């Protein structure tokens, strides 16, 4: 057997490599954030929030219609997906705790959670865009909702399972019907966790591009019609970035900075909420 000193050396070397891996991982995050700030901030003017996307070759312009479209579609996607997710999560954690259906649904949900988002785009294209004969903001919202549901189901179930059973028993002993017990007691006890789940879902879909590429397309102009293609930040970035037009490229970087800032802020807020819940 190797001497103790040799074993220690080996251990120190491997642990040094682990430290190095961590440093590289963290540095990588800052590299990405740095290049976003470096390229995005010069274009961050007031006009970005007040003007429409410019036609190619023209100077100026902003991202107002894209920002508006992204907000609308994220809001609608979460508005459709989150209630369904919370209800399904409630079934898994409350009503179906001993049902044979529950493990099956949980398993399928976990797979949908990691399913490639472009597949969801294809699904919505086939299920919504083709029958409606038009790319539309509604189709994009449905695609986002399909991504939201598994995220919310998962967090809802996890959070409800953390609620102590004694609370449920106390509520039932007072004669509260089961649905009231769930809504007035279990939901309230798990509120921070449920909000965390929804926020994480918003963060997840806020930057999604692949499922929007062929469900809403994009739109050069202002459009509030939900049944027509609508401008949105991710697809606008995707269309602008590969263009030689310097103005477009600048707008794409600024849009990327906005999306990343929003998504990371949501992520941190959600984690902060979740953590303060753990501390109680």
């Amino acid at each position, binding site marked *: 057997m190797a001497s103790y000193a040799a074993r220690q050396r080996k251990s120190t070397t*491997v642990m040094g490599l682990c430290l190095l891996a961590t440093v590289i*991982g963290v540095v990588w995050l800052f590299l*990405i954030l740095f290049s976003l700030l470096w390229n995005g901030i010069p274009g961050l003017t007031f006009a970005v929030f007040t003007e429409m996307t410019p036609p190619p070759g023209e100077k100026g312009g902003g991202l107002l219609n894209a920002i508006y479209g992204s907000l609308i579609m994220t809001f609608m996607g979460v508005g459709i997906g989150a209630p369904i997710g919370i209800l399904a999560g409630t079934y898994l954690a409350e009503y179906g705790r001993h049902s044979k259906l529950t493990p099956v649904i949980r398993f399928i949900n976990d797979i949908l959670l990691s399913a490639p*988002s*472009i597949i969801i785009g294809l*699904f919505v294209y086939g299920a919504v865009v083709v029958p409606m004969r038009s790319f539309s903001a509604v189709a994009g919202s449905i695609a986002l909702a399909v991504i939201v549901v598994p995220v919310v189901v998962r967090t809802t179930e996890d959070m409800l399972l953390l609620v102590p059973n004694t609370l449920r028993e106390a509520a039932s002993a007072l004669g509260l019907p089961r649905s009231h017990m769930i809504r007035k007691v279990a939901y309230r006890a798990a509120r921070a966790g449920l909000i965390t789940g929804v926020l994480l879902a918003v963060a997840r879909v806020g930057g999604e*591009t692949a499922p929007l590429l062929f469900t809403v397309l994009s739109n050069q102009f202002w459009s509030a019609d939900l049944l027509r293609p609508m401008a949105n930040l991710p697809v606008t970035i995707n269309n602008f970035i590969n263009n030689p037009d310097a103005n477009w490229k600048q707008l794409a970087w600024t849009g990327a900075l906005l999306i*990343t800032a929003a998504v990371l802020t949501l*992520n941190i807020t959600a984690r902060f909420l979740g953590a303060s819940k753990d501390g109680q």
Partner: protein
Amino acid sequence: MIRSGDIRRSDFTREGGFPVSAITESGSSTSRTLVSDRARVLKTMAFGDKVFALLTLSAAYLVLLVLAGIIISLIIGAWPAITTFGLDFLTTTRWAPQLEPEPILGALAPIYGTLVSSFIAMLIAVPFGLGIAIFLTELCPHSIRKPIRLAIELLAGIPSIIYGMWGFFVLGPFLANYVEPGIVAVFADIPVLNSVFGGEMLSNLSLFNASLILAIMILPFITAIAVDVFSTVPPVLKEAAYGIGCTTWEVVSNVVLPFTRVGVVGGVMLALGRALGETMAVTFIIGNSFKISSSIFAPGTTISAAIASEFAESEGVHQSGLILLGLLLFVLTFFVLAAARLMLMRLEKRAGA
């Protein structure tokens, strides 16, 4: 004399278990309204209860329906391509959607690109991810553990299109100008390896660049799951190993890793599932060329990149072929993710026991 028992019994049966009128046996009008009010409230509550239970159940079924919907709509969309190309689709390299009179579509190049890019990404990300997890669980001082974990997890929060842009403008040029010429030079005289790492014309867009971006993207998933499963190791096991004089690395390699093997493999497969289906980051940087090249520094394509870059402008059998690609990708990731979940479930069961 009134036998009170009879009254109570009849009230029980009639009013659902609340013997209110039994107390005021005379049966005044106020008590009767009380009874009927209570019955009505209970009835609406029971109705609301049923509706809510039914709502949750149907939402749960909806999850199953979504999966069924995905499979059915992909099969319907892919059917024209399946009947046109059959099994040739899987063995043809040529991708010529504009060919007259009949387009030729073969999935071999995107399938190859998907598998190879994910494989290289795993080769890079697994050691890094596990290394970070080991650092976080075994070495890291308590005070900086949370910020580091947050930083790594934020990597997972960055939208994939941002990775794509960053790879396209920053990482790709850097690799092609400073890193890859060196690697090519090192392997230039070694047979076989000089074609794997070969490249006369190094481009910003290549299979390897896409793999590296993928590796960065899946790193947080591996780390997060590894940290979780490492923390399931009972402290007594580690303390016992330290107690007989093991070094930190010996504890990790002889106690922690064997104990958590199933979970780690599950986490790695989960990350693989992500890598296989990742779209935007890869589309930007892989070059979208339907060729199988021996060099990893040459442009290629993946299933998801092919769909993302061609679908919006496609029609007819070309579109159907792209949907068939999507179906193949879904089947592939489904099995990888299912295997991953089964492994992680096995670990949970053991941790719960």
